[in-house]
């Protein structure tokens, strides 16, 4: 049997809904695992990519410094990098904060919030710093494909992955792009 293709996934400023949708391919996951092997992914809880992988799937936009590091790590280690879902592609719900300054956002949460004692903006070096604006991932690194949807349906994942793994153009047919 040919060597399995390696796939890594991660969620940046997302809700893991895209990952849930990927798992919604249900029993087809077993067929998929015949030809792929997960590298770093929340599915197996591996924390770093070892060597190069063939395909990286990124959910969520870029909201903080850690996201930038993870995204760059993926770009460096993935032959093909895919922007998955609304938040990765456009920023999505988290980007609604872009209408306000970071100061306003943090003060709303940590200074003016209810039932706060000793209210202050957290500054622990353990915490990644937030970017002034949330960015879609293609504004930070080069992206090879966009898989749209909120989340992309299980069928969209299935179609995209099987076509791409077969070496074909993974464009989604119209019925997988309809959301109404």
């Amino acid at each position, binding site marked *: 049997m040919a060597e399995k293709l390696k796939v890594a996934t991660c969620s940046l400023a997302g809700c893991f809904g895209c990952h849930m949708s990927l798992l919604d391919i249900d029993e087809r996951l077993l067929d998929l695992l015949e030809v792929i092997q997960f590298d770093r992914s929340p599915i197996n809880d591996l924390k770093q990519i070892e060597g190069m992988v063939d395909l990286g799937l990124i959910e969520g936009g870029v909201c903080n*410094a850690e996201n*930038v590091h993870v995204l760059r790590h993926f770009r460096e280690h993935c032959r093909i990098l895919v922007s998955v879902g609304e938040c990765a592609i456009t920023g999505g719900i988290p980007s609604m904060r872009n209408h306000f*300054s*970071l*100061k306003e956002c*943090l003060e709303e949460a940590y200074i003016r919030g209810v039932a706060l004692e000793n209210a202050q*903006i*957290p*500054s622990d*070096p353990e915490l*990644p*710093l*937030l*970017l*002034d*604006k949330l*960015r879609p991932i293609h*504004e*930070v*690194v*080069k992206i090879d494909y966009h898989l749209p949807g909120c989340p992309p349906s299980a069928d969209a994942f299935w179609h995209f992955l099987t076509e791409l793994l077969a070496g074909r153009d993974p464009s989604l047919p119209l019925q997988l792009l309809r959301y109404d």
Partner: protein
Amino acid sequence: MPHALLAPPQEAVQPILDRHARDPQELLQILVEVQHALHCVPPEAVDLVAEYLDVTRAHVRGVVGFYAFLSPAYLGDYAIYLSDNITDRMLGNRELAEYLCSRLGVKLGKVRADGRVSVRFTSCTGLCDQGPAALVNGLPVTRLTRERVDRMVELITARKPVSAWPPEFFQVEDNFRRSDVLFRRPFEPGAALKAAMLRGGDETLKDIQQEEALDPASGTLWKRGADETLKELYRSDLRGRGGAGFKAAIKWETCRDTPGGDRYVVCNADEGEPGTFKDRVVLTTYADMVFEGMTVCGYVVDSSRGILYIRQEYWYLKAHLEAVLARRREAGLLGRNILGTGFAFDIEIHWGAGAYICGMESAMIESIEGRRGKPRKRWPLPVVAGVERAPTVVNNVETFAAAGMIALKGGAWFAAHGTMHSTGTKLFCVSGDCERPGIYEYPFGVSVREVLRDCGACGAQAVQVSGPSGTTITRSEFDRILAFEDLATVGTMMVFGPDRDLFEAVENFSHFFQHESCGLCTPCRVGTSLLVNLVDKVAAGKGGPMDLIEIQKLSQIMKTTAHCGLGQTAPNHLLDSIAKFRPVWEARMMTREFEPAFDLDAALDEARQLTGRDDAAAHL
């Protein structure tokens, strides 16, 4: 905060309303006059206009918001708009803008705190052959220099009304450098109309006036004259001069043969394509010829209503054009009984208010009807359902001028000039890096090289033909011909000398389209903005080959999916530039792969300040 020098809104608006019918179609014309009277359309005026026309305030505000020269906020006692076409930039308008702003102590785009003056940029004002140009309270100031700016600042400081400024500031030249058969000598008012009517037979005009011919319904001479004139138009093979080149005779005949009420004849003088200024010159010196062409059209298609839709930038021609119309009415060339034949036709002027899209015919008709200038669906065409859904002929200024001459001299005369598929002569507006910018009339089929030689631009490295929406051509293409067979054009030729950085044109044009997109369809509204983002990214030295591919992809989407010509042609200059002048782009590329358009470390600045952190993890 309207200024004390100007009347309070109530006092200023009422007489304007009194001059206009209580018809929602008058909305834009009323707002244009309000803007001129108050230098804004304040909320009080919106209320008065809405009540007078019985439309909602939201509708009025929607129209105010659409047009660049209508402003809800006061623009100052002196509202200065600096023309920002690439030709103005070549002549140093950016430095002059900076100088003017610093001298006046005003921020670009803002009104000075004392309400005296504001300075902002506007799209091409049609004065490319005598720039850098500006509009001050609606009047064009040409050939700006530092000295002229100094004088302007003095006059503004001394509160001199614009009417008392030196007349040489407002001197607009025709710069008609070469004329051919159409514009060689002055046009004799009435000649073409008489010729058209006399084509019904060899009788003199006196015979037409006889009883049997008087009634258009029964008069055979009457009808025959119109039919024969249409045949002459067919023989001439005249094609529309607005750029698209549709055959005028087919349009006129379709309009005539479409049933449905009173028809309209509309002359398109919106002339918004940057670098185009021929309509200004034609309407300045050959207005009679244009109006006569429109009247002949009214005669042929059996219409009594003509409309000249003209861009706001040419407001200074208002008195002149109205005087020409009045003179024609006196001479019996317009009105209820033209040349005593009973034929009724009159022309009214509709003013645009700053919108490139209104040069597109169905958007223009929306504007004529007093609404936001958004293009209609493609079908039915205006010739079937145009103004008030009546059959409407829409032709360019130059087309009507040519039609008038064809009525006078015949189709064969016209068709003897030009090429097989592009008969007659064409006006070309030459500007940019040349010794003699101005208007040139040539028979169709002239080569780019010949025009460049005549205007004194032999060293040119590129010519933008037909404006930003047209074609960029390189030195190796200068033997191509200007005609519908090869380079179809509205007549615009912006010349780029050997030392010009062509990327400046790319930036100028892409921002122009972003500003002028009407917002109706997503491919154009979003596409023009995405293109600007990418162009700006390349300009900032952060572009890579990926970005060029993205520009090409987006361009293709816009060309195939945009609702109207604006979005479909907006990426032309980018595709041309990337294909023909790739080194211009590559010179700006610092990366071979991909780089963000923004500075990631700077994006952490605010968070660093808020947390007081500066450790290694606080940087990218």
